[in-house]
């Protein structure tokens, strides 16, 4: 029986631990998302030792089988993914061990979310190795990964700006269909879109299908703006886009809508809007050249609030009218006792319009 090699763990700083194999063959710097506990470092050291001794690690995620194996006669390892993602990457020993550790953590995360214990787990969960290391390794080493989603397919390539998903078949995904058709205009990339780093890693590890991946924030915002402009047509001229907000000036009020989640802010006051609890369908769009696009909750929320901002008289929900009146009108808390809040709301809007000083006077006052 071969003698087991010893590992030395050194805490470099509050978020980094260094594992050194006794003969100095391997030196591994593990960065954590938060300060690791002694138990975490021991657990990780034992896992790394196990993978190092076996020279092999295999993990099965929801959509892929990931295999790490030491190449014979070399201090190189091969990372191989098969399933909905397919790629081969050659890694150094240190990179391979770090990848094994992160894949193991990610797989455990998936299992715990499947068991609906994620929230409970968060309370007692130990700190995990920082996933950004794996993203950095793959950015350096990966050439191309073929990716198949539920209905879409294409390939992921690392570039300076991040991981780019080049779409071959957009399938049923509305975002990918838009990018495939108008990619140059929306993202500046022909048929491709930048994925969020963390999400790209989850796709490459087969944890989520590519359709579920969040895109890069800027790309998401551009898609959103493109859809808003397409839907509103000439009305879109009244909407200004600034710092992730769609801003509409109407009835002397400034309506701002957060493009990421559809939050509504009127004259700086947050107005709480939500879909009914039992709503499962949020509507659809029919745009020329794009066909039907089914709306998801966030996009429907953004569109509905923009339409409310452009046409506030269309608000039919009495509680919503009450909320706006209570926060912005002279009526204040009295609105709770109003019998027809929607009627009062429309009257208040008309009153604001009538009592508004003429444009030249406003310009004079501004100057």
């Amino acid at each position, binding site marked *: 029986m071969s003698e087991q090699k010893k590992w030395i763990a050194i805490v470099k700083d509050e978020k980094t631990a260094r594992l050194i194999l006794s003969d100095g063959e391997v030196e591994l710097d593990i960065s954590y998302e938060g300060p690791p506990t002694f138990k975490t470092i021991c657990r990780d050291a034992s896992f790394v030792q196990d993978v190092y001794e076996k020279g092999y690690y295999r993990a099965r995620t929801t959509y892929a089988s990931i295999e790490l194996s030491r190449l014979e006669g070399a201090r190189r390892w091969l990372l191989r993914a098969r399933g909905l993602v397919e790629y081969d990457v050659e890694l150094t020993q240190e990179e391979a061990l770090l990848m094994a550790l992160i894949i193991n953590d990610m797989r455990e995360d998936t299992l715990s979310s499947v068991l609906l214990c994620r929230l409970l787990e968060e309370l007692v969960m130990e700190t995990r190795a920082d996933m950004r290391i794996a993203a950095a390794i793959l950015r350096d080493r990966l050439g*191309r990964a073929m990716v198949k989603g539920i209905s879409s397919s294409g390939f992921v390539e690392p570039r300076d700006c991040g991981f780019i998903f080049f779409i071959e078949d957009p399938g049923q995904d509305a975002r990918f269909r838009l990018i495939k058709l108008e990619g140059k205009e929306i993202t500046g990339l022909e048929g491709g879109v930048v994925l969020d780093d963390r999400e790209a890693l989850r796709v490459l590890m087969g944890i989520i299908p590519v359709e579920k991946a969040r895109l890069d924030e800027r790309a998401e915002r551009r898609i959103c703006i493109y859809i808003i402009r397409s839907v*509103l047509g000439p009305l879109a001229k009244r909407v200004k886009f600034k710092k992730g907000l769609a801003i509409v000036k109407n009835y002397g009020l400034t309506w701002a809508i957060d493009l990421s989640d559809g939050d509504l802010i009127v004259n700086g006051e947050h107005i709480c809007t*939500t879909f009914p609890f039992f709503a499962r369908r949020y509507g659809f*769009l029919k745009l020329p050249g794009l*066909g039907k696009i089914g709306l998801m909750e966030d996009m429907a929320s953004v569109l*509905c609030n923009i339409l409310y901002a452009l046409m506030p008289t269309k608000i*039919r*929900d009495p*509680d919503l009218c009450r909320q706006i009146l209570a926060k912005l009108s002279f009526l204040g808390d009295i609105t709770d006792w109003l019998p027809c809040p929607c009627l009062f709301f429309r009257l208040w809007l008309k009153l604001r319009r009538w009592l508004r000083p003429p444009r030249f006077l406003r310009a004079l006052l501004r100057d």
Partner: protein
Amino acid sequence: MRGQALALLEKPVERFEDEDVAGMTLAELLKREGLLKAVLRGSYLVVVDGRAVDVKDAGELEAIVLEKGSRVAVVRLLSAG
């Protein structure tokens, strides 16, 4: 493999017009999507070419005939949270 993938990307982009809405009435479109009743109940806001459609009965929806290139948005209405 790279050449193959690039060739795929260079293919002329197909428009995803699986159907043409020209000549169809708004009522027909909503019925096909299974949203006609919900729209008549007032749970959705219908916008055609940037104009909100005031829906009072099915007859009004029948009267709106879509043209080639029409933009239709049917959005679930938000209520107070």
